[in-house]
């Protein structure tokens, strides 16, 4: 068939959908870990867009691949630090819901 599925618009659409799905998760999830997980979904989408741009629009260099590496590096560090914070919070409050731990305004 002449219909081409593997093209830039489709890849970008896929990445946008991943970002949206991930952001829905950020809105909705109450548990901090699951929020982090949703952020990972979003990051996944972003990475996909990086690499697909490189493939479809820049055939001579792969610097975007390096950008991808930076992205997962940052994601790793963020996950590590975030998760360790979650552990500490759990030890103190025994509760990881976002309302419990997110009170900058009032004393709980």
């Amino acid at each position: 068939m002449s219909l081409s599925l593997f093209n830039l618009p489709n890849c970008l659409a896929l990445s946008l959908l991943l970002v949206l799905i991930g952001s829905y998760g950020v809105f909705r999830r109450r548990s901090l870990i699951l929020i982090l997980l949703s952020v990972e979904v979003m990051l996944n989408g972003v990475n996909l867009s990086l690499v697909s741009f490189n493939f479809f629009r820049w055939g001579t260099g792969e610097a975007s691949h390096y950008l991808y590496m930076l992205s997962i590096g940052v994601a790793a560090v963020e996950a590590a630090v975030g998760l360790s914070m979650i552990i500490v919070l759990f030890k103190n409050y025994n509760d990881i819901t976002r309302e419990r731990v997110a009170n900058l305004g009032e004393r709980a």
Partner: protein
Amino acid sequence: MNPWLLLLIPLLPGASAALLALLGGRLPYNAIGGLASASVAASLAIVLSFCGAGVFGAGQPIDLDAGPWIATQAFQAGLHLRLDSISLCMCLLVTFFGFLITVYSVGYMRHDAEQGRFFASLNLFVASMLTLVLADNLVLIFLGWEGVGLCSYLLIGHYWKQEDVPLAAFRAFFVNRIGDVFFLLGVFSMFSLFGTVSLSELAAHGPALASIHSGKAALAAFFLLGGAFAKSAQAPLHVWLADAMAGPTPVSALIHAATMVTAGVYLLARLDWLYAVSPEARLIVAVCALVTLVLGAVLALVQTDIKKILAYSTLSNLALMFLALAAGSAGAGMLHLFGHAFFKALLFLAAGSVIFAAHHEQDVRNLRGVLKKLPVTNIAFLVGCIGGAGLIPYLAAGFFSKEAVLGALEEAEFGGFGISLPGHLVHAIVVGVETLSVIYLFRLYGYLRSDAAGPAHGGPAHASAQAHAGHGEVKEKSPAILFVLGLLSLAAPIFGYLSAPPSFGGKGLIWSLITNGAAEPEGVRLMHALPFLIVNLALALLVFAAFSNGKRREALLGRLRGLRRGTNGPLSRKFYFDDVYAAVIVMPLKGAAYLSRLVLENIFTGVITLTGWLGQGLSLGLRRLQSGKVHQYAIAVLLAVFVLAFYLGGH
């Protein structure tokens, strides 16, 4: 003579009023009365000193420019005082009667509780009236106009703790207010037509302009009429005068007989050149004055309160003055103003003496025979009644003045709006009404001089008065009162004598004084007047005989009772004027007040509440943005990113 003395004339009583207002509570009674009397006496002295200044008659008026007051580009009204013959005579009237009545009040108010306030208001009244009389422009007149209205309110409401008094005072003020609106409209139209409000300028240049723009002039004349009618209690704005009797009797004597109610007459006399060119305005004056004339006389016949009888009599007499003005004779009107002042003030003061002696009993049915125990008052009353009825030519203060009015009416023509009212008709009506005045005056005198036989007829029985009437505890005790009564009893006939027209051998002196030098018309001949004189005299004696004897009185009243038609007939309801007012003015005002309360309470409050609610809602909503919850901030950031993406993507 230093013109600046003119300024002192109103200022002295004014300053005394201010002092008394501030310190009145703390001064001893004699000091209050003394200060009040002294200030008016000082004004009187200054006025007298101006008498020799060559102002009288066709003499040279004295002008004083005491400084700017309203001074704008388009409109100026300075503090201009003008002393010409008319205003000098009025000043004499005001200060003379003001002084006498203030002295009288020292005796009358001796047992009163709030004397400081009373004398302060009295002095303020004198000051305002003097301002009104001396003013040379309409705005300054308005200042005095308002001042006397205010003092009238204050003084009528002196016994404010009694039940109907505050309402009466408010009524007087309110009706006056209606008149003030008209007055102001008149001032505005005068200014728009003539470009000035200064009386002297108006008198000089006005007549020419007025005859050209007679329509506009008539409008201005009409508006000013409204003001004059309210102040001088002409129909339909007469309703306040009878109720104004709720104030102390000296007040009734000064304000509602001699001075304030004459302000309207004075105004029209000052502007008679304006009314000369507006026959429609004169017709309106004539008609309303005629109505008031008849109304006053008829209602005076059936009153049982001394002061009310005298009040309705005042209405009639004021109407006479206005009729003279409408006929074009300002001189006759002013002459009757002065004559009426003498005999009416005398009557009121004598009535006050009766009331004071009988411990504030005012119903004539309970005061029968009281004059037998008050000799001086008796004489004063008699002199006043003779003067009021115009019985004896040279001795009656009112005789020649009424004759002057009648004379003016004979030759007058009232036309306008396509109607023509012949002067003869008016003349005839006046003659008839004046007969009534004889009747009601001597009915009153009869009651007060009657023997004590015969039961009281359902009058509100004032227990102490009934006891006193029989037991001789009624006595003349106050020297101040007696002094004033005596003085006036002498002064009234003197005025009567002096007011004789040429046809009766007079020199026309007073006429020329009060008209800035005009010559007095011939006046009616003695021969013409004689029949009426005889009839009046006979009538007076008859009525007196009828009412002074208990049995005869009862017989007469029995036959007359059928005429009265109970307590809802026109006589008892004062010809339904009050009801008309209630329907036309009070009801709409109440309705408007109710509506505005509705609007205020519901709409305005609703708007305010809505604003508050909106604000609160907004703040609550916005407050949730600042929840302090991190995840909400994160979500906000995410949303912002989307918005940004959308925005950037658009490019």
